[in-house]
């Protein structure tokens, strides 16, 4: 079981690294989300294997089985999933906003958006204040 999880994590992380190295922000975002899932799976492996040495499955606690997998990593993952979800929502919103403002999601073109001779943003131009 742990081996299966390890292979899954390896595949997910490989795919996400491939995605993160692309030049398109959409792919990078997807890569980061996948990386989060890979991390969560890696923590599942810390719970210990639900398969006993004889090949039998452990009894779930609700059936009164005494020999349980460690539930704490799963509580950790729940927190991590919620945080990941919030970050995902924020990042996607930001992507939409960026696409509307700059009409591109390409990393190179976004970098060009910043002409070096331009001054820094003023925090609300003085003229607009009353």
């Amino acid at each position, binding site marked *: 079981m742990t081996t299966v999880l390890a292979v899954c994590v390896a595949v997910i992380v490989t795919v996400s690294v491939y995605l*993160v190295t692309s030049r398109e*922000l959409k792919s*990078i975002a997807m890569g*980061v989300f996948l*990386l*989060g899932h*890979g*991390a*969560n799976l*890696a*923590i599942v*492996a*810390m719970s210990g294997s639900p398969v006993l040495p004889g090949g039998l499955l452990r009894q779930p606690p609700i059936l009164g089985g005494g020999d349980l997998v*460690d539930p*704490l*990593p799963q509580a*950790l993952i729940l*927190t*991590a999933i919620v*945080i990941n979800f*919030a*970050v995902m929502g*924020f*990042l996607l919103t*930001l992507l939409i*906003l*960026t696409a509307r*403002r*700059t009409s591109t999601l390409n*990393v190179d073109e*976004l*970098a060009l*958006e*910043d002409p070096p001779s*331009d*001054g*820094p*943003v*003023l*925090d*609300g*131009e*003085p*003229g*607009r*204040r009353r």
Partner: protein
Amino acid sequence: MSTDLLGLLVAIPLATAIASVAVVRHRHRQRVLGLVSLGSMLALSLGWLLDVRDGDVLVSQMGGWPAPFGITIVFDSLSGLLLCAGLVVAIGCYVHAFSVLDPETERRYFHPLVQLLLVGVNQCFLTGDLFNLFVGFELMLMASYGLLVLGHSRRQLGQAYKYLLLNLIASTVFVVSAGLVYGMFGTLNLADLAAIVDARVVSGEGLPPGFVGVSVLLLFVFGAKGAFFPLWFWLPDTYHTCPIPVAALFSGLLTKVGVYAVARTYPLVFAAGDARDVVTPLLLMSAAATMLLGVLGAVSQDRVRRILAVHVISQVGYMVFGLSLMTTAGLAGALYYMVQHMIVKSSLFLCCGVMERHTGTDDLGRLGGLYRRDRFLGVAFFVAAMSLVGLPPLSGFFGKLILVREGWNDRWWLSLVALVTGLLTLVSMLKVWSKGFWSAPAPAGERTTDVLAVGSMRGAYTGIGLLVAAAVFVGLAAEPIYDIALQAGEQLTDPTAYIEAVNPRALFAAGGAGGGG
């Protein structure tokens, strides 16, 4: 010693953030709410800091669950000093923002985001376990992403991703490392981990084979947040684009949380056994490179904001220098340096904001004659800049003195690097001073904005005055503050008091069970 009210330092800003959203149309009500929240937190932290001055450790077990099972909140000298400094910075930047943020930006969630940022920062400073440190980081980062794109101009959107993505990846690595630590030791409570690791090293049982790896992974995570040498590239661009009060807040709080995380976890847990031989050289090299390359970057810049932003990196190097020594005085020096740097750096950023308001630019080639136009700003900038450089009666001097003296015996080359860095800091600060303030005014045609009415900038000047006064205070009261820092350093190198206060094995004490889960 235990007190159940420690959770207030997280609960107050959280409640204020929610209340601010409820009155989001009224910016004056939001301001009052925010100031009440910041003021009450500062009062509470100052009170508790006086309590722990003699080496006590205040502990609060959330929900009454004993240590390794529940969430532990710990308030000792280390967290107390940083909480107070952080809140002073927050108040200064907050008051400053009143008169420089444009009303629409301010109304649209500046206030709740600042409070949420403080929820995260306070939780990081207070938490007693690794997983809640992660949660605190995430809270802080979510709020900082929001503040970073506040007003969402094109430039901000284009530059935000560097910071965002690096931090997302670092956070993922943090979760994995926390999982690995749990897999090795069966606990994430820092006091529990410290006790287990110490027992294993002393008994000769040794640490699990992956321990060194996890230790280095976490160093990557904290280094990315704290802008240590190879992981600093996100910082200058980020601080260049966001509104000035936000940049000042970030420079005071964000990178310091990364440094704090190293100061808290490494002497306690992750620099034990074999890991020390790997982590210490990494920290030493990173410190030297961060200090020297940071200041060289600053000297080569021509824009005030970039000079200040790159200086943040260089100054983080001094803190890492103190941490890498792993001695009581080294850690205390790093802590004192953090406290003074948070305040000084934020006040410099705020001064830079007013310079931009006067002239419409932060390009040194087009600035000039500011001292004649605005005496208060000139004096405030000069005092803050000289604190940063480290001129004797001011705070930076004591910070550098402690570090250089402590490093001189073992790591004299690092102390030399620190001294050279100090000299180059002087060069770059004098460059800003002489070109911006002292020289003849720029030709009239270059001036893009009129001279500001003093009335509309009252909040801005109050914020700057507050922070500069705090910086001078940290310099004048160097001895009492350093005493508390020394206390914190002792508690870090000898965590007995910390472990006893948290008492992670209270439930097992009767049966005498111990060791990994």
